[in-house]
Structures are given as structure tokens and as C-alpha cells.
């Protein structure tokens, strides 16, 4: 990637769990191109896949006929991922950070997303659906976190 350049691409996927593997492969390759090491790539892919699984499960109720979008922006110092759905908006209380109970099934997904990403935000302002923004900074990228381009 040239200095200062921001590359962007978008995937539009059916809300069918069969496509999660393809999404992981594409985003892992993008993260590798952006200079993330193997451990960081694994965490990026894990966090995104948990978020997409939540969309399929909780937003679309496992209806495979719906669609969602994954948009990646590769900055020199970070990878920014937007996950856009067109389903019912989530319960805001459910999105709040809470202490996990490891032995209670379910509810781990949001915790994993927060642990694997450096920033997580939800944009509920769209007329339809929700856009989730996740950011992962590249270690040793230099420059201050939180800058805008």
C-alpha cells in the first residue's frame, strides 16, 4: 500500500452461515496485505465473524434470504471494518458491556468482538438496519490512534 493511501472494498453476502468461511478468507487476506501478523489476523477474523454471526442469528433470525455487507477500509495504520445489516435494530441494552459468565451458553459473541477489536461502535441512525464499525490498529504502525483520514 502506498504511503497515506486508503484502499477500500465491499462484500455483499447472503445471511447464510455457509458464506462465513468465504468472508473470513477475504478479510484475512486483506489484513495480511495491510501488514497484520498472524495472531492479529486471527483476532480480526474472529471478531468480524462473531459480529456477522450475530447479524445472521439475532438480526435476521437465521433467515438465509436476507443480505448484509462487509466494507473494509485499509488505512496505513489500521483496518476499519463496517458491518451493515438491514434488519430490526438491536436492543441497545444488549449491546452494553457486561461481565461474561463463561459457563452460560450464548452471549460470548459480543465479548469476543470487544476483546478482539480496538474500537467498536454501532450506528443506529440509518432509517433501516444498523451499521457496526470495528477498528483494529496495526501494532507498531506509528502515529496516534484515533486520527481520521
Amino acid at each position, binding site marked *: 500500500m502506498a504511503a497515506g493511501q486508503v484502499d477500500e472494498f465491499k462484500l455483499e453476502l447472503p445471511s447464510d452461515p455457509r458464506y462465513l*468461511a468465504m468472508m*473470513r478468507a477475504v478479510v484475512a487476506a486483506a489484513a495480511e496485505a495491510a501488514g497484520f501478523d498472524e495472531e492479529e489476523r486471527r483476532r480480526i477474523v*474472529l471478531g468480524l465473524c462473531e459480529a456477522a454471526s450475530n447479524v445472521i442469528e439475532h438480526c435476521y433470525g437465521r433467515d438465509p434470504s436476507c443480505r448484509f455487507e462487509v466494507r473494509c477500509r485499509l488505512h496505513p495504520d489500521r483496518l476499519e471494518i463496517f458491518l451493515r445489516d438491514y434488519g430490526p435494530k438491536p436492543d441497545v441494552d444488549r449491546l452494553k458491556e457486561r461481565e461474561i459468565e*463463561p459457563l452460560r451458553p450464548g452471549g460470548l459473541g459480543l465479548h469476543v468482538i470487544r476483546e478482539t477489536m480496538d474500537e467498536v461502535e454501532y450506528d443506529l441512525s440509518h432509517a433501516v438496519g444498523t451499521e457496526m464499525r470495528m477498528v483494529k490498529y496495526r501494532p507498531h504502525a506509528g502515529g496516534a490512534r484515533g486520527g481520521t483520514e
Partner: protein
Amino acid sequence: MRVEQRTVNGAQVLAVSGEVDMHNSPALRTELLDLVERRTKAILVDLSDIEYIDSSGVATFVECLREIGTYGGFLGIFGATGAAMDVFEIARLDQVFRFFPDEGTALQAAAAPENA
């Protein structure tokens, strides 16, 4: 995802390989709960060839652990490194499950008097 089962010294070894996500974790859950329903005394899960596993896969192990505990069975996991350990550590389950470096040590633990 592939799941292969074999019996070693009375323990049921499940070798889970490939990628485990919400698409195929129900199949893994079916296999594990089938063993639990048959009150299998020791289940050893080999994760040495796992390429990816997320919270849906881990949730199946949590459910199995709770169920096997109801009759005093033993659930051990061996060979988990890298991708296989990430989600267990993040979910703080690395202190809940019993992890072993390889099949031999897992079999020894399963055969220990307190687990037999």
C-alpha cells in the same frame, strides 16, 4: 469441519479439524451430545488440526462439559494451540476446561483414579 471418532483405552477421542463456526457447530454439538446421552465416561477432543473456531463451537463444549458433569464423566481437550486457543482464552474458558498438550497426557488424566 471434519469430526472423526475412535476409542482408545476406553476413552472416546473426537478429532475435530478444519473450521468450526455457526454453520457447522450444530453437527459437532450433535456428536458430542450423542456421546453424553450414552453416558460416555471419558471424551477427549483433539483440536490439533483446527484452523478456526468461534464462540459457537466453544458453546458446544460448554454444553458438553455441563452435561458430562451430571454423571461424573471426564471431558479433556488436547492439541489446542493458536487459532484453537484464541477463543477459549478470550472467553476466559482456558481455566474452566482441562487442556492437555497431547493425546497421551489426556489419556493418562482420564484414566487417573479420581476420573476413572
